[in-house]
């Protein structure tokens, strides 16, 4: 699974730490999700999508081998 959190963050101009604080997780969690080392739960994915005001599918996308 890939995601566009880094792009969305750049558009909104917020850092990893700020995003982490907005959804109530640690900065490390955001870092591992961005670098595709951790797949977030549905609750966390929905929270991230709500911060950016978009649908979950626009931020998290399935890859061919998923």
């Amino acid at each position: 699974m890939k995601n566009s959190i880094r792009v969305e963050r750049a558009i909104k101009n917020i850092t990893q730490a700020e995003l982490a604080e907005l959804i109530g997780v640690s900065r490390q969690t955001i870092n591992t999700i961005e670098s595709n080392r951790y797949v977030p739960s549905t609750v966390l994915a929905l929270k991230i999508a709500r911060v950016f005001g978009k649908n979950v599918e626009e931020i998290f996308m399935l890859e061919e081998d998923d």
Partner: protein
Amino acid sequence: MKTNLLPAYFKKLGYISLIVAVSAYFLITSGLLYYFVSPKTVFYFKQFSLYTFLFSLFSIGFSADPKGQSLTGNKLLLPHYFKIIGYIFLVITLILCILIKTKRFNWHQSVTTTFIVPNVPDEYQAEMSDRQKKSFLKIEDREKVEVQSTVIINSISLILPIGLLFIAFSKEKIEDELITSYRAQSLQLAILLLFFLILYQKLNVPEVETVIVSGDKNFGYFDLPGRAWKADVLINVILIFGILKMEYMLRIKPFFNKTEKA
């Protein structure tokens, strides 16, 4: 089903009584208390510690959760400040360790229970050799035969888990789902290490060592506990490994990732 028998402030009361109970257990098991009070008072202290512990379990388990408990909230975890308390216990334990090693302070305890060996039934006596029978009858006629079962209490291996458990079972500052998965991973690895440790010891380290004394007319033997690590030592090793793995994933690994990027 929700079990909210008690109001939310009982949770805090439970945590306080847990600290009190564990401190009392620490004082008793480390042997420090024996320096200050009589053994009878220590007995009452033991009772006090046990009942306070049971009360804390009851009040933590059956009280309402404070609001804002997240979905990944683990009921087994203690608040973040228990990590500091855990480190304090660990430091005190290490100081005691050094004092014991340098023989400034020494305390150990063993509980022994004695049983009288029952008579050997006739059918077993029939299988004995003449010499064995002779010596057995000799024992039966004149001497007392006893079997002693002993519990060896090694104070350090029993007080070290207090600090370790508090560190391993307290929440991080921000307890999220990534940390929950790290916790599961480190526990899994710890269980794997435990298995290989036990397997290695089972095959290589003696559990019982027998000293055999024999002469021209007499023959005797006695058993000694082997050098194999007992359960109380093993649990410490596993807890230390689990904590180190957790600390590595939380604090050391991200540091390396950062330097990679730069």
